[in-house]
């Protein structure tokens, strides 16, 4: 039977490969031909390729000495700054070129001449191929074509509109910067640059997506980030052949190490300070145009339990909260499972008084405990999903109805025992504490619950062991996922269950940097103490 399954799998994987190859052989729009020197012909070709879309604007005009040059400006409405086009492209071309009439030898069919003498926009590029021309046009450039020239000038006037920098919705902090990334990737890179003003900060550009042509940037610190890591990211990014990258999640799913794992091996963040901190540790950020979510690799499991605020607050409360986060994750995954295992299999482990009150609460409940737990978790997940998707005003109604349905009516109707309401609501609240592991937590919760229903505590332990083995086998871009617990690294453990004071942690994370060179991020012995005159004098 296994053989049959394996054959099926092989068949499907081969089939997929063939489909992929077919897609590649499809005649692509490979416009590698040069631009014609005949303006009319060029415009005709462009119109034809763009299928006469009505948002394409083609403005033909005459310019230069005696208006003897014929030119055309091609751009897409809404993607360019009209004011810049009028003031900085058309005005210089049509009026300022007249002032240069003394220099009759100036040849405006040379794009370099135009760029150097007339255009007052810094970002411009000479293109000779039709494909490049179209790429630039679609990316928001204005294309200047001149009759008799085999070149075109792609000018990027001004900036495109961008949302203002706001506090991100996902990672709010009490103490710490309130800025968050926006959809415009240029702004995002600038936000990082403002945190790390170092010549080593490298930004590498990729364009991925046959149709979306999305700009993707790898941002990292040279000399700190492992070159092998950067090479690995490059290789993984380059093999993506897809129509569109609409969000960084697309990239994540194409480059992650274990696509079948429920645990994420690539972290994401909306906060520049958080991403900058990770870049400083030797990680690399992958920024995708059009989304405020920036990917950071490599990721380790314990990262999910760390918050930027941990490092801004003093270490004591931060450590307590760190432990609370770990406990919350345990509760959110194991809560209902342990309740079911205890009440159905191991009643002797419950304190007598508690057992008696559980028995009282369950007196009228017609379902077995596992059914009860499933029902409640299911209702909770419905409510959560409804609350997320609805507008805020309606969302509140859902919350109230949910609270009544979950909390009161179901208990009074005898469908659910009151203890189960406590267990499920505690689990639900705990599941919001570690947002980075929400999906793994939700899935594990159901898996453990089923195991507890089948085999009690034994089943839960089996499930935990399987999870542990899986976690230990995961890698994220070469870094063991459970580092620094497995493999054990004492210098890394300073920042896992408790957060040691910053001056105790001078080393960069070993499993990310790997290199011994420059592995200190601060000079050791920075423990603050009052200045002692004599002790300094004697040395």
């Amino acid at each position, binding site marked *: 039977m*296994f053989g049959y*399954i*394996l054959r099926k*799998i*092989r068949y499907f*994987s081969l089939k997929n490969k063939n489909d992929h190859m077919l897609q590649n052989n499809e005649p692509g729009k490979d416009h590698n031909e040069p631009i014609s020197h005949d303006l009319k012909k060029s415009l005709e070709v462009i119109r034809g390729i763009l299928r006469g879309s009505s948002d394409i604007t083609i403005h033909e005009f005459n310019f230069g000495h005696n208006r003897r040059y014929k030119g055309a400006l091609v751009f897409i409405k809404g993607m360019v700054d009209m004011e810049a086009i009028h003031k900085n492209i058309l005005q210089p071309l049509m009026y300022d070129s007249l002032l240069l009439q003394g220099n009759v030898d100036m040849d405006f069919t040379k794009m370099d001449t135009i760029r150097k003498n007339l255009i007052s926009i810094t970002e411009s590029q000479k293109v000779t191929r039709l494909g490049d021309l179209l790429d630039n046009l679609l990316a928001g450039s204005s294309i200047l074509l001149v009759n008799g020239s085999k070149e075109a000038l792609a000018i990027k006037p001004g900036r495109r509109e961008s949302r203002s920098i706001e506090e991100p919705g996902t990672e709010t902090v009490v103490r710490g910067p309130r800025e968050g990334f926006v959809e415009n990737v240029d702004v995002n890179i600038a936000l990082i640059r403002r945190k790390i003003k170092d010549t080593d900060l490298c930004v590498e550009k990729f364009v991925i997506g046959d149709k979306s042509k999305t700009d993707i940037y790898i941002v990292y610190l040279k000399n700190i980030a492992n070159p092998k890591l950067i090479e690995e990211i490059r290789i993984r990014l380059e093999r993506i052949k897809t129509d569109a990258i609409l969000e960084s999640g697309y990239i994540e799913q194409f480059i992650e190490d274990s696509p079948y794992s429920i645990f994420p091996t690539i972290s994401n963040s909306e906060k520049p300070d958080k991403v900058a901190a990770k870049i400083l540790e030797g990680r690399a950020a992958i920024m995708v145009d059009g989304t405020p979510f920036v990917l950071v690799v490599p990721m380790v499991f314990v990262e999910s339990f760390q918050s930027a605020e941990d490092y801004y607050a003093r270490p004591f409360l931060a450590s307590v909260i760190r432990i609370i986060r770990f406990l919350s994750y345990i509760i959110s995954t194991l809560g209902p499972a342990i309740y079911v295992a205890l*009440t*159905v*299999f191991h*009643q*002797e482990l419950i304190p*007598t008084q508690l*057992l*008696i*009150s*559980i*028995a*009282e609460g*369950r*007196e009228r*409940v017609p379902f*077995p*405990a596992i059914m009860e737990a499933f029902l409640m978790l299911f209702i909770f997940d419905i409510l959560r999903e409804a609350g997320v998707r609805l507008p805020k005003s309606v969302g509140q109604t859902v919350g109230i109805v949910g609270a009544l349905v979950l909390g009161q009516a179901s208990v009074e109707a005898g469908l659910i025992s009151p203890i189960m309401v406590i267990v499920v609501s505690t689990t639900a609240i705990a599941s919001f504490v570690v947002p980075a592991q929400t999906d793994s937590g939700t899935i594990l919760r159901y898996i453990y619950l089923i195991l507890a*229903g*089948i*085999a*009690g505590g*034994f089943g839960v332990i*089996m499930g935990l062991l*399987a999870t542990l083995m899986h976690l230990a086998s995961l890698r994220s871009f070469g870094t063991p996922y459970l580092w620094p617990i497995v493999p054990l690294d004492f210098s890394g453990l300073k920042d896992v269950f408790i957060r040691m004071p910053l001056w105790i942690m001078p080393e960069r994370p070993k499993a990310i940097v790997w290199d011994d060179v420059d592995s200190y991020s601060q000079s050791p012995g920075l423990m603050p103490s009052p200045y002692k005159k004599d002790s300094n004098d004697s040395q």
Partner: protein
Amino acid sequence: MGKKMKIILKCLLFFFMLMTLSGCLSAREINDLEIVVGIGVDKDEEPGKILLTAQVVKDTAGRASENGSEGDGKAFWNVSSRGNSVFDAVRQITYKTGNRLFISHNKAVIFGYDIAAEGLEEYIDYFLRAHEMRPTALILVAEGRASDILNIKPEIEKFPAFNIAKLVDSYVFTSNFYKVNMKEFASCLMSDTSAQMAPLVSIAQDEESNDIYMSGMVVFKRGKMVGKLTHDEVRGLLWVLGKVTSGVIIVPSPNGQGKAVLEIIKAKSKVTPEIKDGKIVIHIKIKEESSLSEQTTTENLADNKALEKIQEALAEAIRREIMLTFDKSRELDADIFGFGEMLHKKYSKEWKYIKDNWDEIYPTLDLIIDVEARIIKTDLLKKPAVPSEGEK
């Protein structure tokens, strides 16, 4: 791909194989449990049979106390059945309950007086053998019938068994009896020489109320009850065992006109057996600290001279308590102190000669008691509340 798949399938196979290996995989919904909190064992009228009483928690326990209209207002149900053995009776209870008893939460096993007199060895086996039974369950002997003790509804607690467990725990305040659980009782039972003890629980014979109280301890020898110890005698025993935690000692005041009432704060004991010239001597060294908690004279007891005299009297009182208990144990010929085991540890070579004659040797033991009693404080008052004429 194929290799990975094989590994996954192998893991799954191992998982399911492990499932078949495990033993206790019986799911029981909490609604189907008959939670037993106390068990009483009595002799039945019919000879050779026993009457087992199980105290079962009612599902409606929470509501029963709130409104009396529901049922008889009791949170528990004492269900009993007859049987030829304990296990037989436990299984026959299902005729009445419909469900198997769930005895993991049993707090106390109470044996009737007649069962204790006949000997526990016939009845105790099930309680040690059954896997659901806790070795920490208390063992008690009822003065009278165990079922009567379990029937008396306590004023504060919901369940008589909980009430009894609470009473047993109160030994720390008086040191006049102590707590024995199944495991401790069984390990004493396995010793060749030591006597076993169990607290005795009685019904107060007042006119109006019939409350349960702890009336002392019962001494067993090889599982058979041989006698009872009163409260004072139990403390004599606990001094030697070093288990006195607190309690009240009354000694006459130095001028003999009133009493000085002392609270025991701390007590330590050291027992060393010695074989000297063919005679066995037991050295008992006791260190005790107490506070003056009450006085019934106008004399000022808080000066050094008076305190010294009280300390002497206190040491004497403790010595007397120990001797009283030792005399009683000699009379019963039961080694409640465990001197035999101590000798066994120290003189393992000689022990084989002593062992078989221990019953004859035990009454001839010599006790050398050395008590060091100290009064370390006089609580909140330095002078008597009503000072005598001269003191003013």
